[in-house]
C-alpha cells in the first residue's frame, strides 16, 4: 500500500477575493514555480512549507493536504 499527497491549494487560493500564486509564494517563502508545481501535484512541499500554506489560508494542514492511500 502506497500513498500519494493531494492538495486543495488552488481551490483555497481562489476562494473569496482570491490570491495570486505570486502573493502566496512570497507569503510562504518559495518561488511562484514551486506553488505551480504544488498545485499541479508535481511537488509535495516540506512540512514547514505545508504548515505555512495552511496558515495563510487559516485552515488546519489536513484540510489543505491529504494523504490518499494507493493500491501499489
Amino acid at each position, binding site marked *: 500500500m502506497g500513498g500519494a499527497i493531494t492538495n486543495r491549494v488552488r481551490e483555497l487560493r481562489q476562494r473569496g477575493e482570491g490570491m495570486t500564486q505570486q502573493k502566496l509564494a512570497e507569503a510562504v*517563502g*518559495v*518561488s511562484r*514555480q*514551486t506553488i*505551480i*508545481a504544488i498545485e*499541479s*501535484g*508535481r*511537488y509535495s*512541499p*516540506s512540512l514547514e*512549507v505545508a504548515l505555512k500554506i495552511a496558515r495563510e489560508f487559516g485552515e488546519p494542514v489536513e484540510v489543505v493536504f491529504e494523504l490518499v492511500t494507493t493500491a501499489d
Partner: protein
Amino acid sequence: MSSMSFQEKSAWGTLVSLLVIGALYFSSVWNLWRAEQLHMAAMFGLSVGFTILLTVVLVGYHLIVAAISGGQDEDERDRLIGWRAGNSSGIVLGVAVISIVLMIIAGGMVDDPFWQQPVVIANALMLAVLLSMIVELALTIWFHRKGI
C-alpha cells in the same frame, strides 16, 4: 519561458552551451588526432581556449537572463532538485572514472599503448566530466518539468 524559474533557464542555457562547445572541442581534438598533431601542448591550448569560451558564453547568458527576468533565490524545491540531479551525475562521473582507470590497467596488462597516452587519458577524463554535467543539467530540467 515565463513559467520557468531562473534555475531552469540557467540549466537550459548551460546544457545547450555545454553541448555545442563540448562538440566543438571534441571535434577539434578528433581532427588533431587524425592529423597526428594531438600532443599535450596543443591539447592544453584547446582546453584553455574552450574553457574561456564556455565561461564567457555562460556569464553573458546568465547576465541576460537575470536582466530580463530577474535573479531568484533557491527555494527548497530547487535545492532538492539540485541534490538529486547532483547525486546522479556523481554516480555517472564515478563510474566513468573507474572505467577509465580499468582501461588503463587493462591496457597495461595487454601491452596496448593506446590507454597509456596522456592525451587519451586527459580527453577521456574531460569526456567523463562533460557527460556527468550533461546528466546533471538534463535531470535538473526533467525534475523541473515533470516534478520531483
